[in-house]
Protein backbone atom coordinates (compact mmCIF):
# COMPACT_ATOMS: atom_id res chain seq x y z
CA UNK A 1 0.00 0.00 0.00
CA UNK A 2 2.85 2.31 0.84
CA UNK A 3 4.34 1.62 -2.54
CA UNK A 4 1.13 2.58 -4.26
CA UNK A 5 1.17 5.88 -2.43
CA UNK A 6 4.85 6.40 -3.13
CA UNK A 7 4.41 5.82 -6.83
CA UNK A 8 1.45 8.13 -6.87
CA UNK A 9 3.44 10.86 -5.22
CA UNK A 10 6.34 10.39 -7.60
CA UNK A 11 4.08 10.55 -10.59
CA UNK A 12 2.25 13.56 -9.33
CA UNK A 13 5.53 15.33 -9.21
CA UNK A 14 5.39 15.21 -12.99
CA UNK A 15 3.03 18.11 -12.68
CA UNK A 16 4.77 20.14 -15.31
CA UNK A 17 3.54 17.70 -17.86
CA UNK A 18 0.04 17.94 -16.55
CA UNK A 19 -0.01 21.53 -17.70
CA UNK A 20 0.76 20.44 -21.23
CA UNK A 21 -2.01 17.86 -21.11
CA UNK A 22 -4.56 20.41 -19.99
CA UNK A 23 -3.43 22.92 -22.58
CA UNK A 24 -3.71 20.30 -25.29
CA UNK A 25 -7.21 19.31 -24.24
CA UNK A 26 -8.34 22.94 -24.18
CA UNK A 27 -6.87 23.71 -27.55
CA UNK A 28 -8.58 20.65 -28.99
CA UNK A 29 -11.90 21.74 -27.53
CA UNK A 30 -11.56 25.17 -29.09
CA UNK A 31 -10.54 23.68 -32.42
CA UNK A 32 -13.79 21.70 -32.34
CA UNK A 33 -15.64 24.82 -33.13
CA UNK A 34 -13.84 25.14 -36.43
CA UNK A 35 -13.86 21.47 -37.28
CA UNK A 36 -17.50 20.73 -36.60
CA UNK A 37 -20.71 22.60 -37.02
CA UNK A 38 -21.66 23.04 -33.43
CA UNK A 39 -24.61 25.27 -34.03
CA UNK A 40 -26.79 22.87 -35.93
CA UNK A 41 -29.03 20.04 -34.90
CA UNK A 42 -26.24 17.58 -34.41
CA UNK A 43 -24.34 19.71 -31.99
CA UNK A 44 -24.93 17.48 -29.00
CA UNK A 45 -23.46 14.46 -30.72
CA UNK A 46 -20.59 16.31 -32.35
CA UNK A 47 -19.83 18.15 -29.15
CA UNK A 48 -19.79 14.98 -27.09
CA UNK A 49 -17.58 13.29 -29.64
CA UNK A 50 -15.16 16.16 -29.80
CA UNK A 51 -14.99 16.39 -26.03
CA UNK A 52 -13.98 12.78 -25.75
CA UNK A 53 -11.45 13.05 -28.51
CA UNK A 54 -9.84 15.79 -26.46
CA UNK A 55 -9.80 13.57 -23.38
CA UNK A 56 -8.50 10.50 -25.18
CA UNK A 57 -5.73 12.28 -27.02
CA UNK A 58 -4.49 14.22 -24.03
CA UNK A 59 -4.80 11.03 -21.99
CA UNK A 60 -2.66 9.21 -24.54
CA UNK A 61 -0.02 11.90 -24.27
CA UNK A 62 0.00 11.58 -20.53
CA UNK A 63 0.25 7.81 -20.59
CA UNK A 64 3.10 7.75 -23.02
CA UNK A 65 4.94 10.42 -21.17
CA UNK A 66 4.70 8.79 -17.77
CA UNK A 67 6.22 5.55 -18.96
CA UNK A 68 8.89 7.22 -21.01
CA UNK A 69 9.98 9.29 -18.07
CA UNK A 70 10.08 6.27 -15.82
CA UNK A 71 12.08 4.36 -18.36
CA UNK A 72 14.61 7.10 -18.78
CA UNK A 73 15.04 7.32 -15.08
CA UNK A 74 15.56 3.56 -14.99
CA UNK A 75 13.15 3.23 -12.12
CA UNK A 76 11.00 0.72 -13.93
CA UNK A 77 13.72 -1.88 -13.68
CA UNK A 78 14.52 -0.84 -10.15
CA UNK A 79 10.95 -1.38 -9.12
CA UNK A 80 10.85 -4.87 -10.47
CA UNK A 81 13.99 -5.81 -8.60
CA UNK A 82 12.63 -5.19 -5.16
CA UNK A 83 10.15 -7.82 -3.96
CA UNK A 84 7.03 -5.75 -4.38
CA UNK A 85 3.95 -7.31 -5.89
CA UNK A 86 3.46 -6.17 -9.44
CA UNK A 87 -0.16 -5.48 -8.64
CA UNK A 88 0.82 -2.72 -6.26
CA UNK A 89 3.03 -1.14 -8.89
CA UNK A 90 0.16 -1.31 -11.32
CA UNK A 91 -2.18 0.37 -8.88
CA UNK A 92 0.26 3.18 -8.26
CA UNK A 93 0.66 3.88 -11.94
CA UNK A 94 -2.99 3.35 -12.74
CA UNK A 95 -4.15 5.75 -10.07
CA UNK A 96 -1.67 8.40 -11.02
CA UNK A 97 -2.54 8.12 -14.70
CA UNK A 98 -6.20 8.26 -13.81
CA UNK A 99 -5.63 11.29 -11.61
CA UNK A 100 -3.98 13.15 -14.46
CA UNK A 101 -6.85 12.43 -16.81
CA UNK A 102 -9.37 13.47 -14.17
CA UNK A 103 -7.58 16.74 -13.57
CA UNK A 104 -7.67 17.48 -17.29
CA UNK A 105 -11.39 16.72 -17.27
CA UNK A 106 -12.05 18.92 -14.28
CA UNK A 107 -10.53 21.86 -16.11
CA UNK A 108 -11.86 21.06 -19.57
CA UNK A 109 -15.50 20.32 -18.76
CA UNK A 110 -16.47 23.77 -17.45
CA UNK A 111 -14.64 25.41 -20.33
CA UNK A 112 -16.47 23.18 -22.79
CA UNK A 113 -19.80 23.87 -21.12
CA UNK A 114 -19.22 27.60 -21.34
CA UNK A 115 -17.94 27.68 -24.91
CA UNK A 116 -20.66 25.53 -26.39
CA UNK A 117 -23.56 26.04 -24.06
CA UNK A 118 -23.90 22.33 -23.52
CA UNK A 119 -24.65 20.91 -20.07
CA UNK A 120 -21.30 19.26 -19.53
CA UNK A 121 -21.43 19.60 -15.78
CA UNK A 122 -24.45 17.40 -15.19
CA UNK A 123 -23.78 14.56 -12.73
CA UNK A 124 -24.13 11.80 -15.30
CA UNK A 125 -21.60 13.45 -17.58
CA UNK A 126 -19.15 13.71 -14.72
CA UNK A 127 -19.82 10.15 -13.69
CA UNK A 128 -19.28 8.75 -17.14
CA UNK A 129 -16.15 10.87 -17.47
CA UNK A 130 -14.79 9.12 -14.41
CA UNK A 131 -15.85 5.67 -15.54
CA UNK A 132 -14.49 6.15 -19.04
CA UNK A 133 -11.24 7.57 -17.74
CA UNK A 134 -10.78 4.62 -15.40
CA UNK A 135 -11.13 2.05 -18.16
CA UNK A 136 -8.84 4.00 -20.44
CA UNK A 137 -6.26 4.48 -17.69
CA UNK A 138 -6.28 0.78 -16.85
CA UNK A 139 -5.67 -0.38 -20.40
CA UNK A 140 -3.36 2.54 -21.00
CA UNK A 141 -1.18 1.77 -17.99
CA UNK A 142 -0.92 -1.85 -19.04
CA UNK A 143 -0.02 -1.11 -22.63
CA UNK A 144 2.33 1.74 -21.93
CA UNK A 145 4.30 -0.65 -19.73
CA UNK A 146 4.21 -3.18 -22.54
CA UNK A 147 5.41 -0.64 -25.07
CA UNK A 148 8.02 0.86 -22.79
CA UNK A 149 10.72 -1.56 -23.72
CA UNK A 150 10.10 -1.40 -27.42
CA UNK A 151 11.90 0.73 -29.93
CA UNK A 152 8.83 2.51 -31.13
CA UNK A 153 7.06 2.94 -27.85
CA UNK A 154 5.22 6.16 -28.63
CA UNK A 155 3.56 4.69 -31.65
CA UNK A 156 3.04 1.19 -30.34
CA UNK A 157 1.01 2.19 -27.33
CA UNK A 158 -1.84 3.92 -29.18
CA UNK A 159 -1.84 1.21 -31.85
CA UNK A 160 -2.56 -1.32 -29.15
CA UNK A 161 -4.72 0.86 -26.93
CA UNK A 162 -7.18 2.45 -29.34
CA UNK A 163 -8.82 -0.61 -30.90
CA UNK A 164 -9.23 -2.14 -27.48
CA UNK A 165 -10.74 1.08 -26.12
CA UNK A 166 -13.47 1.33 -28.74
CA UNK A 167 -16.20 0.36 -26.24
CA UNK A 168 -15.06 3.25 -24.04
CA UNK A 169 -15.28 5.67 -26.93
CA UNK A 170 -18.70 4.48 -28.02
CA UNK A 171 -20.09 4.32 -24.50
CA UNK A 172 -18.87 7.64 -23.15
CA UNK A 173 -19.81 9.62 -26.23
CA UNK A 174 -23.21 7.96 -26.28
CA UNK A 175 -23.95 8.75 -22.66
CA UNK A 176 -22.68 12.30 -22.98
CA UNK A 177 -24.75 12.87 -26.10
CA UNK A 178 -27.88 11.52 -24.45
CA UNK A 179 -27.41 13.78 -21.45
CA UNK A 180 -26.91 16.77 -23.74
CA UNK A 181 -30.12 15.83 -25.51
CA UNK A 182 -32.00 15.53 -22.23
CA UNK A 183 -32.43 11.80 -22.72
CA UNK A 184 -30.47 10.68 -19.68
CA UNK A 185 -32.85 7.84 -19.00
CA UNK A 186 -31.63 6.01 -22.07
CA UNK A 187 -28.05 6.26 -20.96
CA UNK A 188 -28.08 3.60 -18.26
CA UNK A 189 -27.42 0.51 -20.35
CA UNK A 190 -24.30 2.20 -21.69
CA UNK A 191 -23.25 3.21 -18.23
CA UNK A 192 -23.61 -0.36 -17.03
CA UNK A 193 -21.58 -1.61 -19.96
CA UNK A 194 -18.75 0.77 -19.16
CA UNK A 195 -18.86 0.02 -15.46
CA UNK A 196 -18.60 -3.68 -16.26
CA UNK A 197 -15.77 -2.90 -18.69
CA UNK A 198 -13.90 -1.12 -15.91
CA UNK A 199 -14.32 -3.95 -13.45
CA UNK A 200 -13.13 -6.51 -15.97
CA UNK A 201 -10.13 -4.63 -17.25
CA UNK A 202 -8.87 -3.04 -14.09
CA UNK A 203 -8.78 -6.48 -12.48
CA UNK A 204 -7.33 -8.14 -15.57
CA UNK A 205 -4.62 -5.51 -15.90
CA UNK A 206 -3.87 -5.83 -12.19
CA UNK A 207 -3.43 -9.57 -12.49
CA UNK A 208 -1.50 -9.54 -15.71
CA UNK A 209 0.87 -6.69 -14.88
CA UNK A 210 3.11 -9.28 -13.27
CA UNK A 211 3.93 -10.62 -16.72
CA UNK A 212 4.93 -7.24 -17.97
CA UNK A 213 7.35 -6.35 -15.23
CA UNK A 214 9.21 -9.60 -15.24
CA UNK A 215 12.48 -8.28 -16.46
Amino acid sequence: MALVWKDLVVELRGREFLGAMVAFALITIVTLNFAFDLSGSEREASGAGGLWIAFLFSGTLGLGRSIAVERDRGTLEGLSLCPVPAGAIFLGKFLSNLAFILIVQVVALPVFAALYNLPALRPLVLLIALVGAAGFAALGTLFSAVSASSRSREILMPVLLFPLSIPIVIGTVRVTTLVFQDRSGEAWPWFNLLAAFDVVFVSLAYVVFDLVLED
Partner: protein
Amino acid sequence: MNNVQRRSDLPTQALGLMATLILSVGIYMAFVYVPADRVQGDAQRIFYVHVPMAWLAYLAFAVIFVGSVGYLWKRSMRMDRLARASAELGFLFTTLVLVTGSIWGRPIWNAWWSWDARLTTTLILWFIYLGYFVLRSYAGDRERGARYAAVLGIVGAIDIPIIHLSVTWWRTLHPEPIVLNTSGPNLPNSMLATLLVCFAGFTLLYIYLLVQKYRVELVRDTLAEREMTMMLNSRPHAHGSTSQVPTSPSSRSRITTPGDTVGASED
Protein backbone atom coordinates in the same frame (compact mmCIF):
# COMPACT_ATOMS: atom_id res chain seq x y z
CA MET B 1 15.95 -33.05 -39.74
CA ASN B 2 13.67 -35.49 -41.45
CA ASN B 3 10.61 -33.54 -40.61
CA VAL B 4 11.82 -30.57 -42.53
CA GLN B 5 12.82 -32.60 -45.53
CA ARG B 6 9.57 -34.42 -45.91
CA ARG B 7 6.87 -32.05 -47.10
CA SER B 8 4.57 -33.31 -44.41
CA ASP B 9 3.67 -36.61 -42.91
CA LEU B 10 0.70 -38.71 -43.92
CA PRO B 11 -1.98 -37.41 -41.57
CA THR B 12 -1.23 -33.82 -42.52
CA GLN B 13 -1.22 -34.61 -46.20
CA ALA B 14 -4.51 -36.38 -45.78
CA LEU B 15 -5.84 -33.34 -43.99
CA GLY B 16 -4.73 -31.09 -46.79
CA LEU B 17 -6.32 -33.37 -49.33
CA MET B 18 -9.59 -33.51 -47.43
CA ALA B 19 -9.67 -29.76 -47.16
CA THR B 20 -9.08 -29.34 -50.88
CA LEU B 21 -11.74 -31.91 -51.69
CA ILE B 22 -14.40 -30.45 -49.47
CA LEU B 23 -13.62 -26.94 -50.59
CA SER B 24 -13.92 -27.99 -54.20
CA VAL B 25 -17.33 -29.45 -53.49
CA GLY B 26 -18.19 -26.28 -51.65
CA ILE B 27 -17.21 -24.07 -54.55
CA TYR B 28 -19.22 -26.19 -56.94
CA MET B 29 -22.20 -25.92 -54.66
CA ALA B 30 -21.75 -22.19 -54.26
CA PHE B 31 -21.58 -21.59 -58.00
CA VAL B 32 -23.82 -24.22 -59.50
CA TYR B 33 -25.93 -26.05 -57.00
CA VAL B 34 -27.31 -23.26 -54.92
CA PRO B 35 -29.78 -20.88 -56.56
CA ALA B 36 -29.01 -17.21 -56.78
CA ASP B 37 -30.50 -14.97 -54.15
CA ARG B 38 -33.78 -13.41 -55.20
CA VAL B 39 -32.83 -9.95 -54.09
CA GLN B 40 -29.09 -9.79 -54.48
CA GLY B 41 -28.53 -12.04 -57.44
CA ASP B 42 -25.28 -13.79 -58.07
CA ALA B 43 -23.18 -11.45 -55.97
CA GLN B 44 -24.73 -12.99 -52.91
CA ARG B 45 -22.68 -16.12 -53.54
CA ILE B 46 -19.73 -14.32 -52.01
CA PHE B 47 -21.48 -15.11 -48.74
CA TYR B 48 -20.23 -18.70 -49.00
CA VAL B 49 -16.59 -17.69 -48.65
CA HIS B 50 -17.09 -14.51 -46.66
CA VAL B 51 -18.92 -16.08 -43.72
CA PRO B 52 -16.71 -19.16 -43.22
CA MET B 53 -13.63 -16.96 -43.32
CA ALA B 54 -15.17 -14.67 -40.71
CA TRP B 55 -15.60 -17.73 -38.53
CA LEU B 56 -11.92 -18.52 -39.09
CA ALA B 57 -10.86 -14.98 -38.24
CA TYR B 58 -12.45 -15.30 -34.82
CA LEU B 59 -11.52 -18.94 -34.34
CA ALA B 60 -7.90 -18.02 -34.97
CA PHE B 61 -8.04 -15.42 -32.25
CA ALA B 62 -9.63 -17.91 -29.89
CA VAL B 63 -6.63 -20.15 -30.56
CA ILE B 64 -4.34 -17.20 -29.83
CA PHE B 65 -6.20 -16.81 -26.54
CA VAL B 66 -5.66 -20.47 -25.69
CA GLY B 67 -2.00 -20.20 -26.58
CA SER B 68 -1.63 -17.00 -24.58
CA VAL B 69 -3.24 -18.45 -21.48
CA GLY B 70 -1.19 -21.59 -21.90
CA TYR B 71 1.98 -19.55 -22.14
CA LEU B 72 1.11 -17.44 -19.14
CA TRP B 73 0.33 -20.52 -17.11
CA LYS B 74 3.06 -22.93 -18.05
CA ARG B 75 5.63 -20.83 -19.93
CA SER B 76 5.43 -23.45 -22.59
CA MET B 77 7.07 -22.48 -25.87
CA ARG B 78 4.62 -24.81 -27.55
CA MET B 79 1.77 -22.57 -26.51
CA ASP B 80 3.49 -19.45 -27.71
CA ARG B 81 4.24 -21.15 -30.99
CA LEU B 82 0.58 -22.04 -31.35
CA ALA B 83 -0.42 -18.44 -30.79
CA ARG B 84 2.18 -17.21 -33.25
CA ALA B 85 1.09 -19.63 -35.94
CA SER B 86 -2.58 -18.84 -35.52
CA ALA B 87 -1.94 -15.11 -35.56
CA GLU B 88 -0.62 -15.08 -39.08
CA LEU B 89 -3.51 -17.17 -40.35
CA GLY B 90 -6.04 -15.12 -38.46
CA PHE B 91 -4.70 -11.93 -39.96
CA LEU B 92 -4.87 -13.40 -43.45
CA PHE B 93 -8.47 -14.46 -43.06
CA THR B 94 -9.54 -11.26 -41.34
CA THR B 95 -8.12 -9.28 -44.24
CA LEU B 96 -9.97 -11.50 -46.69
CA VAL B 97 -13.22 -11.08 -44.78
CA LEU B 98 -12.92 -7.32 -45.03
CA VAL B 99 -11.98 -7.45 -48.70
CA THR B 100 -14.74 -9.89 -49.69
CA GLY B 101 -17.21 -7.99 -47.54
CA SER B 102 -16.30 -4.80 -49.32
CA ILE B 103 -16.53 -6.39 -52.76
CA TRP B 104 -19.87 -7.89 -51.88
CA GLY B 105 -21.11 -4.62 -50.56
CA ARG B 106 -20.27 -2.58 -53.63
CA PRO B 107 -23.02 -3.91 -55.91
CA ILE B 108 -25.48 -4.33 -53.06
CA TRP B 109 -25.16 -1.04 -51.21
CA ASN B 110 -23.47 0.97 -53.92
CA ALA B 111 -20.70 1.68 -51.46
CA TRP B 112 -17.39 0.04 -50.66
CA TRP B 113 -18.10 -0.03 -46.97
CA SER B 114 -20.92 -0.15 -44.51
CA TRP B 115 -20.61 0.21 -40.78
CA ASP B 116 -22.48 -3.02 -40.34
CA ALA B 117 -21.91 -4.29 -36.82
CA ARG B 118 -20.18 -7.51 -37.80
CA LEU B 119 -18.00 -5.90 -40.42
CA THR B 120 -17.05 -3.11 -38.05
CA THR B 121 -16.08 -5.50 -35.29
CA THR B 122 -14.02 -7.41 -37.83
CA LEU B 123 -12.28 -4.19 -38.81
CA ILE B 124 -11.34 -3.60 -35.19
CA LEU B 125 -10.21 -7.22 -34.96
CA TRP B 126 -7.95 -6.54 -37.92
CA PHE B 127 -6.29 -3.73 -36.02
CA ILE B 128 -5.85 -5.91 -32.96
CA TYR B 129 -4.10 -8.51 -35.10
CA LEU B 130 -1.94 -5.77 -36.55
CA GLY B 131 -1.05 -4.59 -33.07
CA TYR B 132 -0.15 -8.16 -32.18
CA PHE B 133 2.42 -8.32 -34.98
CA VAL B 134 3.85 -4.89 -34.35
CA LEU B 135 4.17 -5.78 -30.68
CA ARG B 136 6.00 -9.00 -31.43
CA SER B 137 8.38 -7.52 -33.92
CA TYR B 138 9.27 -4.51 -31.80
CA ALA B 139 9.53 -6.38 -28.55
CA GLY B 140 13.26 -6.82 -28.44
CA ASP B 141 13.95 -10.35 -27.40
CA ARG B 142 11.84 -13.40 -28.10
CA GLU B 143 10.92 -14.22 -24.57
CA ARG B 144 9.65 -10.73 -23.89
CA GLY B 145 7.80 -10.77 -27.20
CA ALA B 146 6.08 -13.97 -26.18
CA ARG B 147 5.09 -12.59 -22.80
CA TYR B 148 3.74 -9.32 -24.13
CA ALA B 149 1.95 -11.02 -26.97
CA ALA B 150 0.30 -13.29 -24.41
CA VAL B 151 -0.93 -10.21 -22.55
CA LEU B 152 -2.40 -8.79 -25.73
CA GLY B 153 -3.87 -12.14 -26.65
CA ILE B 154 -5.71 -12.40 -23.39
CA VAL B 155 -6.85 -8.79 -23.12
CA GLY B 156 -7.84 -8.77 -26.77
CA ALA B 157 -9.84 -11.96 -26.62
CA ILE B 158 -11.78 -10.79 -23.59
CA ASP B 159 -12.38 -7.40 -25.15
CA ILE B 160 -13.65 -8.63 -28.50
CA PRO B 161 -17.10 -9.72 -27.29
CA ILE B 162 -17.45 -6.39 -25.47
CA ILE B 163 -16.40 -4.52 -28.59
CA HIS B 164 -18.95 -6.45 -30.59
CA LEU B 165 -21.67 -5.70 -28.08
CA SER B 166 -20.96 -2.00 -27.97
CA VAL B 167 -20.69 -1.77 -31.76
CA THR B 168 -23.99 -3.62 -32.17
CA TRP B 169 -25.77 -1.27 -29.77
CA TRP B 170 -24.18 1.68 -31.51
CA ARG B 171 -25.33 0.42 -34.86
CA THR B 172 -28.95 0.32 -33.83
CA LEU B 173 -28.69 4.08 -33.76
CA HIS B 174 -27.51 4.27 -37.35
CA PRO B 175 -29.46 1.70 -39.30
CA GLU B 176 -27.82 0.88 -42.58
CA PRO B 177 -28.08 -2.00 -45.00
CA ILE B 178 -26.87 -5.17 -43.40
CA VAL B 179 -24.56 -7.72 -44.90
CA LEU B 180 -26.86 -10.67 -44.55
CA ASN B 181 -30.54 -10.66 -45.18
CA THR B 182 -30.79 -14.31 -44.38
CA SER B 183 -29.20 -15.96 -41.40
CA GLY B 184 -29.92 -18.83 -39.08
CA PRO B 185 -32.84 -21.16 -39.50
CA ASN B 186 -34.50 -18.99 -42.11
CA LEU B 187 -31.99 -20.06 -44.70
CA PRO B 188 -33.39 -22.36 -47.35
CA ASN B 189 -31.91 -25.84 -47.19
CA SER B 190 -29.74 -25.59 -50.26
CA MET B 191 -28.08 -22.44 -48.95
CA LEU B 192 -27.62 -23.95 -45.53
CA ALA B 193 -26.05 -27.07 -46.99
CA THR B 194 -23.67 -25.09 -49.17
CA LEU B 195 -22.71 -22.91 -46.25
CA LEU B 196 -22.03 -25.90 -44.02
CA VAL B 197 -19.88 -27.59 -46.62
CA CYS B 198 -17.86 -24.42 -47.02
CA PHE B 199 -17.58 -24.08 -43.26
CA ALA B 200 -16.19 -27.59 -43.02
CA GLY B 201 -13.79 -27.08 -45.89
CA PHE B 202 -12.43 -23.82 -44.57
CA THR B 203 -12.07 -25.16 -41.06
CA LEU B 204 -10.04 -28.10 -42.34
CA LEU B 205 -7.96 -25.68 -44.37
CA TYR B 206 -7.31 -23.61 -41.29
CA ILE B 207 -6.21 -26.64 -39.29
CA TYR B 208 -3.94 -27.76 -42.11
CA LEU B 209 -2.34 -24.33 -42.42
CA LEU B 210 -2.00 -24.11 -38.65
CA VAL B 211 -0.13 -27.41 -38.49
CA GLN B 212 2.21 -26.37 -41.29
CA LYS B 213 2.86 -22.95 -39.84
CA TYR B 214 3.40 -24.41 -36.40
CA ARG B 215 6.06 -26.71 -37.80
CA VAL B 216 7.78 -23.86 -39.52
CA GLU B 217 7.87 -21.95 -36.26
CA LEU B 218 9.13 -25.02 -34.43
CA VAL B 219 12.06 -25.38 -36.78
CA ARG B 220 12.73 -21.67 -36.49
CA ASP B 221 12.74 -21.85 -32.73
CA THR B 222 15.05 -24.84 -32.73
CA LEU B 223 17.44 -23.14 -35.10
CA ALA B 224 17.48 -20.03 -32.98
CA GLU B 225 18.13 -22.06 -29.87
CA ARG B 226 21.00 -23.95 -31.45
CA GLU B 227 22.41 -20.75 -32.83
CA MET B 228 22.46 -19.34 -29.32
CA THR B 229 24.08 -22.41 -27.85
CA MET B 230 26.65 -22.60 -30.62
CA MET B 231 27.56 -18.99 -30.10
CA LEU B 232 27.94 -19.43 -26.39
CA ASN B 233 29.95 -22.61 -26.76
CA SER B 234 32.34 -21.16 -29.26
CA ARG B 235 33.55 -18.61 -26.76
CA PRO B 236 36.70 -20.06 -25.17
CA HIS B 237 35.89 -19.86 -21.46
CA ALA B 238 32.31 -18.92 -20.96
CA HIS B 239 31.98 -18.52 -17.21
CA GLY B 240 35.23 -19.87 -16.03
CA SER B 241 33.97 -23.20 -14.80
CA THR B 242 32.11 -24.82 -17.65
CA SER B 243 32.30 -24.30 -21.36
CA GLN B 244 28.99 -26.02 -21.87
CA VAL B 245 25.99 -23.84 -21.25
CA PRO B 246 23.42 -25.78 -19.28
CA THR B 247 20.35 -26.30 -21.34
CA SER B 248 17.02 -27.87 -20.65
CA PRO B 249 17.01 -31.63 -21.13
CA SER B 250 14.90 -31.65 -24.26
CA SER B 251 16.95 -29.10 -26.14
CA ARG B 252 20.19 -30.78 -25.09
CA SER B 253 19.09 -33.97 -26.73
CA ARG B 254 18.31 -32.06 -29.90
CA ILE B 255 21.74 -30.53 -30.02
CA THR B 256 23.81 -33.60 -29.42
CA THR B 257 22.06 -35.66 -32.05
CA PRO B 258 21.60 -33.52 -35.12
CA GLY B 259 20.37 -36.45 -37.13
CA ASP B 260 17.18 -36.79 -35.13
CA THR B 261 13.88 -35.64 -36.51
CA VAL B 262 13.31 -32.09 -35.46
CA GLY B 263 9.61 -32.44 -35.12
CA ALA B 264 9.66 -35.58 -33.07
CA SER B 265 10.69 -34.14 -29.75
CA GLU B 266 8.47 -31.23 -28.96
CA ASP B 267 8.76 -29.71 -25.56
